[in-house]
């Protein structure tokens, strides 16, 4: 490992601009003649749009246009799409209602846009929006799963009777029933996975700029995947063909899944910029983020686990209802199915699993992938079940897990996934040692003497990342392939540009991706730059989500590097009059092994571009590209243990220690990996203790600002105690598994297992607020 190579804790190259206020986010960009958009949004959860009167608004100063959903229809702009087709157990395709970018007839959630005001300034657009009169006819609404599935419930979409999108199954029902028939013990659990608002700190924003002469659009947008945005906007929304649409995602202030999707606002901004003949900018405020960014989680589940007399799990049955909100967002259908139920085996050898998932429409904001996307819900369920089983069977929860760990790899689960490698005992050992698990009983007794209830909770998670092998996801209904592309450009002076289809919105790619180059060529990372986030610069890419950027994106870079190095070695061998096989790359030089003959990279690059003396038949230049499609998912796994105290007088939880032992395979930059874990843990703990996106029975959001929705703050969280165990991923040449989501996947169960251990009562829903904990302690 060099000082800047793989495994080095290199401080981030991108930080200078962020710490000096020179980051360039979408809202920082101004274009000449730019107008500002303000959306008029439904205050009702379900209503008919009877009339929109914009006559008064149009007379106001600075107002350029007021555009409505009907005009979108008239201009044949397409509806929003869901990109993953799920088939119900009866063989029927999922049942979806249309989602127009602005509603021409019916609104189905509070915050759905019906019209947009375009004006010279943001304030003038807001003023004019106040003067637009929308006549609504309110309809009855349903806000939660139970209400939506009742017979006689208000119906959202005629296409989906009973508000049911699909009723999907996975696994072998007969084998699972047989396992339960011979079980020595059955453990049952009902679990609610609370709805969350992603809340990237940068609100979504878009600037659309139409060039009438070239019939060309440019869109600056807060996207995790600008090429996918361009593809969807072109192929499905009829905005413009791909070569007439450039999508730029500059610095993006966090995503967590919420910026994967193509939302109504950027579509409308593009369409409106052509209509008004000027650039159109929209920047959401925080309440708009709560109302319109796709939410996460929101499941209710009943699960049963069958165990034999030796406490070995022999079967698992799961029935989950997933709330999709009012419309099917881009990848929503895959989240509670292929990203959830396929992980229900957890770290355990479970011979028979059967899961049924019912997707449900409600009059709420659409729900889609949020950090972890399905895998946190699976992990939470399994780890709550394990804890419940240990309590019911009166065995140590860590030992029950060990009894059931998968120890032979590869391991085929009954729910599609084939785990490639892992060492679950090693990560549990590391976590138990870090928290001094053996000494817990004494600490609990000590806390008790001080009037505090101390608890400890284990969570052993596994996730499927490195998303994803294209053929596999295609066979499961995905509308896209999930490979990644890369291009390596060595300039004539020897500096290097890496073009990647991954997108960094906090992950530190501008540093970690350079570290691979430093490792292979021995050049300083200052000589390398990473180019991303612009469809005019990078040919194509699938973006960043699903902990895929290192496992898939960086592997694509490696493949392109290998091609470039191969050509460069030929040039070096020719110049040095040596055999290509004898050339090695060290410290930025191409050397003839065992001699002092060498040629520096810039000289090789210059030779490639001057082309005065290249091997016969060789093309000039030094630029190579690669597409990399993984052969399997990757399987990061680990053990989290949380120790905490509950004040029985107030129900308040205080952390004593939180340890995380993760196996991410090879780490490129441990400092950045740790940062990813910290952030994920905070989101998992936030779900467990604080966060809940709440609607009242009429579908009115109760938590639509940071004054109502409890975001984790510095004094809500502990410092974390991290460690790593390592099994290299055999599926990619770098041995990388991915680290972006683990914390959010594993943390919630550790916290709830610890609180329920502390208070001696097993049933406690998230978020475990002091009020809820106090009531649980004192319930009869």
């Amino acid at each position, binding site marked *: 490992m060099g000082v800047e190579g793989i495994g080095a804790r290199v*401080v*981030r190259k*991108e*930080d*200078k*601009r*962020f*710490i*000096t*206020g*020179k*980051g*360039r*986010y979408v*809202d*920082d960009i101004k274009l000449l003649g730019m107008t500002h958009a303000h959306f008029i949004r439904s205050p009702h959860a379900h209503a008919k749009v009877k009339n929109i009167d914009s006559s008064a608004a149009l007379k106001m100063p600075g107002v350029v246009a007021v555009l409505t959903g009907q005009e979108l229809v008239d201009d044949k702009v397409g509806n929003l799409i869901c990109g993953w087709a799920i088939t119900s157990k009866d063989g029927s395709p999922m049942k979806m209602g249309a989602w127009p970018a602005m509603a021409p007839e019916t609104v189905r959630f509070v915050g759905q846009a019906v019209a947009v005001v375009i004006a010279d300034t943001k*304030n003038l657009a807001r003023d004019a929006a106040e003067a637009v009169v929308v006549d609504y006819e309110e309809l009855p609404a349903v806000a939660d799963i139970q209400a939506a599935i009742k017979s006689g419930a208000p119906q959202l979409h005629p296409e989906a009777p009973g508000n049911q999108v699909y009723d999907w199954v996975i696994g072998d029902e007969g084998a699972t029933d047989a396992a339960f028939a011979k079980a020595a013990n059955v453990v049952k659990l009902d679990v609610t996975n609370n709805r969350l608002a992603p*809340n*990237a*700190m*940068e*609100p979504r924003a878009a600037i659309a700029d139409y060039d009438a002469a070239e019939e060309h659009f440019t869109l600056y947008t807060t996207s995790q995947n600008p090429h996918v945005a361009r593809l969807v906007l072109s192929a499905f929304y009829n905005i413009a063909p791909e070569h007439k649409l450039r999508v730029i995602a500059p*610095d*993006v*202030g*966090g995503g*967590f899944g919420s910026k994967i999707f193509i939302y109504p606002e950027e579509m409308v901004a593009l369409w409106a910029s052509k209509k008004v003949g000027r650039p159109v900018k929209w920047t959401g*405020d*925080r*309440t708009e983020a709560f109302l319109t960014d796709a939410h996460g989680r929101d499941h209710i589940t009943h699960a049963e686990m069958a165990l034999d007399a030796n406490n070995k799990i022999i079967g698992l049955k799961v029935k989950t209802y997933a709330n999709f909100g009012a419309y099917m967002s881009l990848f929503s259908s895959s989240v509670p199915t292929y990203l959830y139920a396929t992980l229900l085996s957890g770290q355990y050898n479970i011979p028979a699993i059967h899961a049924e998932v019912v997707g449900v429409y409600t009059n709420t904001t659409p729900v889609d992938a949020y950090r972890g996307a399905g895998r946190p819900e699976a992990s939470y369920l399994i780890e709550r079940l394990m804890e419940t089983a240990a309590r019911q069977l009166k065995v140590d929860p860590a030992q029950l897990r060990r009894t059931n760990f998968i120890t032979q790899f590869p391991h085929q689960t009954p729910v599609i996934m084939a785990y490639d490698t892992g060492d679950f005992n090693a990560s549990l050992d590391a976590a138990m040692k870090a928290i001094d698990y053996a000494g817990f009983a004494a600490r609990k007794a000590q806390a008790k003497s001080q009037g505090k209830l101390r608890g400890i909770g284990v969570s052993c998670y596994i996730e499927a990342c490195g998303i994803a092998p294209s053929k596999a996801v295609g066979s499961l209904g995905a509308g896209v392939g999930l490979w990644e592309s890369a291009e390596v450009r060595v300039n004539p002076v020897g500096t290097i540009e890496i073009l990647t289809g991954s997108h960094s*919105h*906090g*992950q*530190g790619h501008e540093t970690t991706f350079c570290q691979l180059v430093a490792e292979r060529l021995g050049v300083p990372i200052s000589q390398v730059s990473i180019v991303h986030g612009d469809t005019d610069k990078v040919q194509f890419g699938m973006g960043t989500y699903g902990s895929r950027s290192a496992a898939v994106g960086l592997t694509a870079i490696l493949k392109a590097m290998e091609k470039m190095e191969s050509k460069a070695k030929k040039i070096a061998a020719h110049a040095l009059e040596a055999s290509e096989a004898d050339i090695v790359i060290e410290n930025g030089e191409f050397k003839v092994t065992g001699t002092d003959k060498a040629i520096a990279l810039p000289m090789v690059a210059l030779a490639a571009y001057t082309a005065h003396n290249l091997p016969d038949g060789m093309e000039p230049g030094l630029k190579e590209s690669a597409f990399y499609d993984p052969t399997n998912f990757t399987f990061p796994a680990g053990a989290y243990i949380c120790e905490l105290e509950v004040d029985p007088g107030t129900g308040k939880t205080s952390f004593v220690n939180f340890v995380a032992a993760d196996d991410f395979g090879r780490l490129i930059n441990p*400092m*950045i990996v*740790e*940062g990813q874990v*910290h*952030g*994920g*843990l*905070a*989101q998992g703990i936030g779900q467990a203790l604080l966060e809940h996106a709440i609607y009242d029975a009429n579908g009115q959001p109760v938590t639509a*600002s*940071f*004054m109502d929705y409890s*975001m*984790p*703050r*510095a*004094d809500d*969280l502990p*410092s*974390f105690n991290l460690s790593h165990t390592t099994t290299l991923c055999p599926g990619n040449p770098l041995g990388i598994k991915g680290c972006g989501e683990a*914390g959010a996947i594993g943390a919630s169960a550790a916290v709830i297992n610890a609180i329920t251990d502390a208070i001696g009562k097993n049933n406690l829903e998230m978020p475990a607020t002091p009020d809820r904990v106090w009531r649980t302690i004192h319930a009869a």
Partner: protein
Amino acid sequence: MSTVKLTVNGKAVAVDVEDRTLLVQLLRDHLNLTGTHVGCDTSQCGACVVHMDGKAVKSCTMLAGQADGANVTTIEGIAKGDELHPMQAAFRDNHGLQCGYCTPGMIMSAIDIVHRHGGQLDEPTVRQELEGNICRCTGYHNIVKAVLDAAGRMKVSQAAE
């Protein structure tokens, strides 16, 4: 419209703004100082924190007119040329930022915290003092480390002055 006269990052400026203009809008839209961010509009997240007459304020929650005559420092004004402020350097060295959006407000709040507490800072104090700044990326772990690190560096650099 009113003319607001103030000093921003050491430069005297006079800006004609609508009376309802917020200080953050004056900074971002009129002076092109886009390092100061808006994250919540309700004084909760602290992405908009700047210093006014030496104290941390949330620039999304005050009118530009209220800054008339004041001395305002933004994230763009704390480095001395190429030499980073110790707090900026500590955020970089401790990986106290990821997406960077909350970072300017965090750094401005953190400098104010160190100024107010001097060398008496410990982890619980930093965590409590950062209550008005929300970060979604870092889980605060490395931000807390950065602030404590910078507190030491600022003491050293003050002693050297």
